[in-house]
Every structure is written in structure tokens, then in C-alpha cells.
């Protein structure tokens, strides 16, 4: 790994996005619009206060997953990845460069989403706003890391889009949004313990209700961090300099 190459890659990815203002707009506004829609849909029911924190985790996670997996797939198909790997680029330089670039975008995106949910939609947050933001950012970076990993297993755009229902939907279903995880059948509860999004949603709920101490949220953040590191390591293992 080489810091100069990692930073150059991150800067290059951000420059590419800089040339595409519509993507920036969609990236920054869509999660907030969806959260706003949820708040409006459930206005006067109290449901938004229950599911709102989870939404802060969901939308940035999904959007970062999709954007990252498609951009890196494009890089594999366009021949630029082959060129980079024939040059002195380390595999980690490439993966970390992407994680860093999209991680920075995720910070901006999550900040807007959290701010919108709290100040515009009136989401009640009993705990620390900073902790909420930290979990939201970790979650968006997790989306990026999983997207990088998923793109390694896809040969076409069609396949990479299918990874979204395959990898993301089960995490949403079992994450505790539709049914509290404690009330699930035992097997599903056990599975949900091994899905990173469950821990992100647990953490956001805990912060929103101030129901647990900071140590609990910290542990959840560590679990998400472990999944991020795992996905990055696996992702760099799946990058091959020699291809058929």
C-alpha cells in the first residue's frame, strides 16, 4: 500500500464525480427526499419516530452500495483496471482510494440526511446527534465496501444490479425495520445477528431513544467497522492482476 497512490485514486474518483453534477445532486438529495416521504406518509401516526432512525441507515447504505458496485464494474470493463494493475498500483491502493472517495461523499450525504430528518421532518433524537451521524457514516461506508466486493463477482451491469436484492434486501428484511429482531423466529434472529445492517439499525435506534449507553453503540460501531475491513480485505483478494 502506498499513500500517494491511494490519495491519487481517491482524488481521481472525486474528480470524475465532479464532472457529473447530476450524480452529485442525486447522491446528496435523494436519501433526504425519501426520508421526507416517509415522514409525510406516516404523519400523525407516530410510526416515523419508530422507523425514522432505521431509514437514516437504509437509504445511504443502498445508494452507496449501488454507486460503488457500478463504478468499479465500469472500471473492470473499460480496461482501466487492467492498466492500473499492470502499473505499480497496489490492490489496496485501488480499493482504499475508492473507499476514501466514497467515504467522503458518504459523510456529506449522511450529514444532510440526518439534518433533514431531525430539523425538517422532526425526528426525535434523545441521544447524541454526533453519535447518530457517526453510525450513519459508518453505515454508508459499509455500503461502499460491500459494493466494491460485490462488483468483483459480477461480469455485467445486469448481474451487479441483481446483487442489490440478493445482498441488501435480506439485510433490510431481517434488520428489525419490519419486525423487532427479538420477535423473529429463532433461526432468523440468529442469522440477523450476522448481518451488518442489523447492528447499524440497532445502534441508530439506541441513539435515537437513548436506551443504551455509549459503550453499546461503540460495540455496534466496532462490529460495523469489522465488516468494512473484512469486505475491503476480501475485495482486494478478489482483484486479480492476471485474468483469463
Amino acid at each position, binding site marked *: 500500500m502506498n499513500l*500517494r*497512490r491511494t490519495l*491519487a*485514486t481517491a*482524488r*481521481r474518483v472525486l*474528480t*470524475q464525480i465532479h*464532472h*457529473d453534477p447530476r450524480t452529485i445532486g442525486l447522491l446528496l438529495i435523494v436519501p433526504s427526499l425519501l426520508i421526507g416521504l416517509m415522514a409525510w406518509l406516516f404523519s400523525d401516526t407516530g410510526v416515523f419516530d419508530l422507523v425514522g432512525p432505521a431509514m437514516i441507515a437504509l437509504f445511504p447504505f443502498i445508494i452507496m452500495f449501488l454507486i460503488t458496485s457500478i463504478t468499479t464494474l465500469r472500471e473492470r470493463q*473499460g*480496461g*482501466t483496471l*487492467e*492498466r*492500473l*494493475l*499492470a*502499473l*505499480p*498500483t497496489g490492490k489496496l491502493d485501488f480499493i482504499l482510494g475508492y473507499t476514501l472517495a466514497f467515504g467522503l461523499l458518504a459523510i456529506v450525504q449522511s450529514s444532510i440526511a440526518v439534518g433533514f430528518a431531525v430539523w425538517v421532518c422532526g425526528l426525535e433524537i434523545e441521544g447524541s446527534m454526533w453519535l447518530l451521524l457517526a453510525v450513519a457514516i459508518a453505515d454508508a461506508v459499509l455500503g461502499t465496501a460491500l459494493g466494491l466486493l460485490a462488483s468483483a463477482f459480477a461480469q455485467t451491469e445486469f448481474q451487479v444490479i441483481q446483487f442489490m436484492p440478493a445482498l441488501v434486501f435480506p439485510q433490510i428484511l431481517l434488520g428489525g425495520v419490519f419486525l423487532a429482531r427479538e420477535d423473529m423466529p429463532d433461526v432468523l434472529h440468529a442469522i440477523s445477528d450476522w448481518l451488518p445492517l442489523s447492528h447499524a439499525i440497532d445502534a441508530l435506534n439506541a441513539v435515537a431513544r437513548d436506551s443504551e449507553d455509549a459503550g453499546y453503540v461503540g460495540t455496534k460501531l466496532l462490529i460495523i467497522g469489522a465488516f468494512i475491513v473484512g469486505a475491503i480485505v476480501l475485495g482486494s483478494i478478489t482483484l*486479480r*492482476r*492476471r*485474468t*483469463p
Partner: protein
Amino acid sequence: MVNYAIQVDNLRVRRGRNEVLHGLGFEVPRGALVGLLGPSGSGKTTLMRSIVGVQREVSGKITVLGHPAGSAKLRHRIGYVTQAPSVYLDLTVRENIRYFASILGVVRGDVERVIHATGLDAQADQLVGSLSGGQLSRASLAAALLGTPELLVLDEPTVGLDPVLRFELWNLFRELSAAGTTLLVSSHVMDEATRCDRLLLVHDGDILADETPTGLLERTATTDADDAFLALIKAADRGAADTHPDAGTGRKEAP
């Protein structure tokens, strides 16, 4: 002892269940401009990828600039241009070149040098996606010239270019070769053959000829490269048909 840039011995490459290169062997002296010619699907790209070290399932021995092909030490010393223009379409020419320059760790001045060498000064701040086909492939070539690599492996760099641009690019290749760079340039345009020091003719995963352009014309008693190549392929297919009646039809490179 002659100093070789590339030495290939008994190179075999499998892609899936097919063997696409059947035990090639040849040498490229340092500083030579060598043309790799052959019909599409003959194995040119696979051979180039093997030399650069990005091809899987390679057996045999390939030594590049004194190291086994694919060594980490070689990544600074080889410039490789794939058939697809491997540059970022949503960056400008200069942003692309700057990025590859910082990957290689070459000085900033080199960015302007390679943009100028490929005649892209006027397009330097244009998005690569908005360039014409010829400008696009020159942008890809510019990235490969960064850091003045000792060996340039160029896969069909002149495909789809007009005659004027092709002429200019071959002049550039000659200049680079005169300055000591070794070039391996593939093409399926036979008239480009006459601009090379030496020719490697690849057909169906084998090397049909390895000689100078004039030597090739003399041997085949023809006056242009197209005829010479056709004559060699016909002779090879006849030879193969004498020994194995089915050869030449069943052995086809996978797409």
C-alpha cells in the same frame, strides 16, 4: 551477447478448454520496433497480455528486460496500451494523464511532454469522452508514454485512424525506437508492416514468420505485405492439411 528486451520460449496459453498459443518462441532485441501481425483471433492480444504479465494460464518461459514476465519490478518499465482505450471517459485528457503520472510517481513535467508528443495539446482540457476515435486512442497512448518506459507494448494503436494520423503515429514509434525504446506493436493492417524493423506473423496461435519486411517479401516472392501474408497463411494451411486433415478448422480462438 545480444541484449534482448523480450525472450519467449515454448509459450503456451490456455483460455478455458482451448489452447490459444501453441508453444511460441522468439526474441526481440532491445531498441527494435517489432510489428506483431496477424488476422483478428490469431492470438496477438493473448501474446501481448502474456508479455505484460496480465494473462492467466501461461506456461513456458517469458523473460522481459531480464525479469520473468509479470514481475513487480517491471511495472515501472513497461508501457502497455490495450485495444480498448483504457482511459477515464469522464475526465479530461490532462486529468487522466496526471492520475497515471501520480500512480507511476513521475515528475509533473512529464504530463505535458506526453500530451505534446501525442499531439493532444489543443484537447488537453477536453473530456476524453468527447474526443474523436483517433484522439481517444492517442490519449490512451499518452498515458503509456509516461516515465519513458523501456518497453512499449501497443495493441492495435492505429485501428480506426485515418492515414494521416497513422503516418504520424508510426513516425512517433520510429522516434521512440531511435531513442532506445523497444516497441512491440500489433496491427492487422499489413501495409504498416513496412515501417517495422522486424515482423512477427501470428496465425492460429503459431508464429508463421519472424523476419525483416524485405526478407519476408523476398521469401514469398511478393511485392506487398498483404500478399506475402496471404501466401504464408496458404502455405501453412496446406502444410497442416498434409499432416492432419482437420487442422486449421477445429482450432479456433475463443471469443
